């Protein structure tokens, strides 16, 4: 076995997708940076989210419309949840894109999967952002015992 320094024994990663080089804007580079930057922020956002919703107080049993309404009535939690929504969805979908590139060797199959990823992310980001910012914690005509305690008596 001849292990030469020029042919260093580090194998290059294999991916079925063709690699495009020599572009002024290298999307793979920015994807790589994004995975790491969003990952660091997501650690804080997700662990905070899990602590407040699953651990503190009564855990998951405390969650109902009144609980979520109370949180989403505050700008702090609105921005917390929306940041998590955007960062996690794009991070997850970009990670899934890597995996599709690795395993789907057929170009058509690859593009169908990636199209599905883009569609899912765009729809869910729009939906989630709309829900957080157009949400009404005290919808008219709802039984008072289902609403947050700060809602005016109807």
């Amino acid at each position: 076995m001849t292990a030469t320094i020029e042919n260093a024994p580090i194998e290059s990663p294999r991916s079925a997708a063709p690699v495009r080089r020599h572009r002024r804007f290298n999307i793979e580079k920015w994807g790589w940076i994004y995975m790491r930057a969003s990952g660091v922020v997501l650690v804080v956002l997700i662990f905070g989210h899990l602590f407040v919703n699953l651990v503190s107080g009564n855990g998951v049993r405390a969650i109902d419309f009144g609980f979520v309404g109370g949180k989403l009535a505050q700008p702090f939690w609105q921005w917390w949840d929306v940041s998590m929504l955007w960062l996690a969805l794009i991070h997850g979908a970009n990670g899934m894109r890597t995996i599709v590139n690795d395993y789907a060797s057929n170009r058509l199959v690859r593009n169908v999967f990636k199209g599905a990823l883009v569609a899912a992310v765009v729809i869910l980001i729009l939906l989630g952002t709309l829900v957080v910012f157009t949400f009404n914690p005290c919808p008219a005509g709802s039984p008072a015992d289902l609403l947050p305690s700060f809602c005016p008596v109807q």
Partner: protein
Amino acid sequence: MSAAPTTDSAKKHPDIPLPKVPRGTLYRGREGMWSWVLHRITGVAIFFFLLVHILDTSLVRVSPQAYNAVINEYKTPIMGLGEAALVAAIGFHALNGLRIILIDFWSVGPKRQRLMFWIVIALWVILMAGFLPRQLMTIGAEFAGA
């Protein structure tokens, strides 16, 4: 240098000793590979959970009744186990994600990747030791129907 350098390249770089066994790969075998496998599996699992989770949370925009009906499905012992699995998956993915970042940006990261893997496992065990008793209380209360 003990191993006699015989190849041309080794003659050109006499100060770099040849490894006795193929080395220099982070991703083949042992901790490097298994951490990658686990990172990939947990990443996919969390992604699919997230898709569903955004849809169920969006029901707060429909009506209190609709949201409560669906969220009550999470308050069963079976889903309690699912939540434990979810926390286990996210806990590993997050800790190992930080390890990946350290491998990439910390000068001695690649050298310490194996040690860092076991630190990830240790921190994950501590995390789960803190979370599981709390989650078992929840599951117990769900069984009792309280």
